[in-house]
């Protein structure tokens, strides 16, 4: 079966998705699963009254079936108690849609998981989240290839931004100075990736806003494991903490200030 051969119901929910959007309020909780790296990211919002879901909405980045399953899930759960909604499985969602192509059953059918996350988060409201680390510590000794590539594409400081002209540059977030460097480099190259182990770049509000409006691409929940290349930096190995997966990213320069 071709990946795009969907049932009429899937296509209907893709073309006319129900309940797109976000919910706000004290009686609302949300769940987020997936990862844009894999092609699918879903957010499900539920409004709960007397232990019953009275409203559900979603936002999804993903393929046709990702959008359809999100839409169907939000339709299915309205009126259910939280316990009932916890019982809704991926298979239930797929069945309601008259099935999904087998290859889509895992990657694009995460809406039930997002719903369960939302329910858990609803039940844990008021419990203060543990302060997460800001992700700025970086131990150069743990980086494979650090010595070999120093001055061959690995920079510990940026003396002259013109060295980076047209170069795809990875900047490791090690504090505000690294954010400054990333922003500065956008004047000479349109490809700057800022990498952090945290789930966002922890910095001043001012720098944060500047980053948001810049061309800097932010890579969260990621660690730089290794630099690779023949004699010079050609690519890096990155560990995605969320998915617990490694992948290669092609770059010309790495900056660790």
């Amino acid at each position: 079966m071709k990946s795009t051969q969907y049932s009429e119901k899937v296509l209907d929910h893709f073309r006319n998705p129900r309940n797109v959007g976000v919910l706000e309020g004290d009686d609302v909780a949300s769940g987020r699963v997936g990862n844009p790296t894999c092609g699918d990211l879903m957010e499900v919002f539920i409004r709960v009254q007397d232990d019953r879901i009275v409203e559900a909405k979603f936002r999804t980045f993903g393929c046709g079936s990702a959008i359809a399953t999100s839409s169907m899930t939000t339709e299915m759960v309205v009126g259910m108690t939280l316990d009932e909604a916890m019982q809704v499985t991926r298979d239930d969602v797929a069945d309601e849609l008259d099935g999904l192509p087998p290859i889509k059953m895992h990657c694009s059918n995460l809406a039930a998981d997002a719903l369960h996350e939302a329910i858990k988060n609803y039940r844990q409201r008021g419990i203060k989240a543990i302060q997460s680390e800001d992700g700025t510590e970086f131990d150069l000794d743990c980086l494979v290839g650090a010595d070999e590539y120093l001055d061959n594409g690995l920079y510990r400081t940026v003396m002259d931004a013109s060295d980076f002209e047209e170069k795809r540059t990875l900047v490791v977030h090690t504090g505000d100075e690294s954010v400054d460097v990333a922003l500065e480099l956008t004047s000479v190259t349109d490809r700057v990736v800022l990498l952090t182990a945290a789930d966002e770049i922890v910095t001043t509000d001012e720098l944060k806003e500047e980053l948001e409006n810049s061309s800097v691409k932010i890579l969260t929940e990621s660690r730089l494991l290794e630099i690779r290349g023949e004699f010079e930096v050609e690519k890096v190995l990155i560990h995605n903490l969320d998915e617990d997966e490694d992948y290669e990213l092609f770059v010309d320069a790495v900056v660790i200030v």
Partner: protein
Amino acid sequence: MTSEVYLDYQSAKPVDPRVIDEMTPYLRDRFGNPSTLHNVGDLATEALEESRKTIARFVNSDTDEIIFTSGATESINLGIIGYAMKNKRKGNHIVISEVEHISIHNIAKYLERQGFNVSKVPVDQYGRVSLSKLERRLTDKTILISIGIANNEIGTIQPIEEIGKLASEKGIAFHTDAVAAEGLLPLDVKRDGINLMSLSSNDIYGPRGVGVLVMRKGFRVNPVLIGGGQERGLRSGSEDMPGIVGMRAAAEIMEKELPEEVKRFKTYRDRLIKEILGTVPDSYLNGHPEQRLASNAHIRFEGIEGEALLLSFKDRGISVSTGSACTSKTLEPSHTLIATGLLHEEAHGSLQLTVGRFNKDEDIDVVLEAVPEIVTRLRDMSPVYKRKK
């Protein structure tokens, strides 16, 4: 399906009706086998040798350097595996680029299992191979370089003449996959120092199931198909005469019409690129701004996924392609886009538009009207898209 707007010429092309007219007699009265000696066979032999002459002229090689195959995949197998096996005593190292067609990457994996070493040259952010990075990878064990003239996804054109020159200086054979470039760039194996070149018939509006390996003198390959010894023993199997005649007809038309056609494609391409980048915020061009095929517009949109994009176009009767993993067999994003330095999530949101012989101005209008609407709709649903100020 008459109202279908087709902007996916890179994936498949219709056979030109003029080509079909040339082929038909060879499916009917002129059905002969060139290996036979009677009159019916002679007609086939004549057509085969005429076709060889035309293709040789089309690529500027000698006539006896043309080997007909069943298509580009077979040509590439014969060119790379055939050359590697023939020359394995000279060395066991082969160099390809990171942005070769998937068939070449898979052949490389196969050769690695046979004891060869394969190096892959990285490309810059536009998908161009760097000559210094290529040179650095050559060793005294290197017997073959295989780098395509242009990339089939993002349309980036490689510095082929320079690569050919470097290969010849180092005494290394140079194979090129010319499929993406065929019909869009004039081919010339002598000018570009190409020793082995793979071609497909469909990419110049000929029938599928026919291709050519150009094998220059002094660069012999081992056959990969063994049989009755056709094509001087290098490619056995009775010649597919309707197909070969079709490829000849397609090449003849192409020789006449290429310059005019390329001019028209460029107008379409430039309009697509300029208007999409101009009307859709946070959209970017993949591939090289100038060194790109006349038919190719490859755009990436932040915050959306390619399969959803493709389905939305499909609903409007528009055929396009995407670099998204969700439409591939392996669920892996396009290796070409990753090699240009894109993250997986960026590779997912790419749209590939390729124009061709039968497109009209109105097709471009239809697509340009659809793009902003489709992108906006999908972005409104996306939790990852945030418009920059």
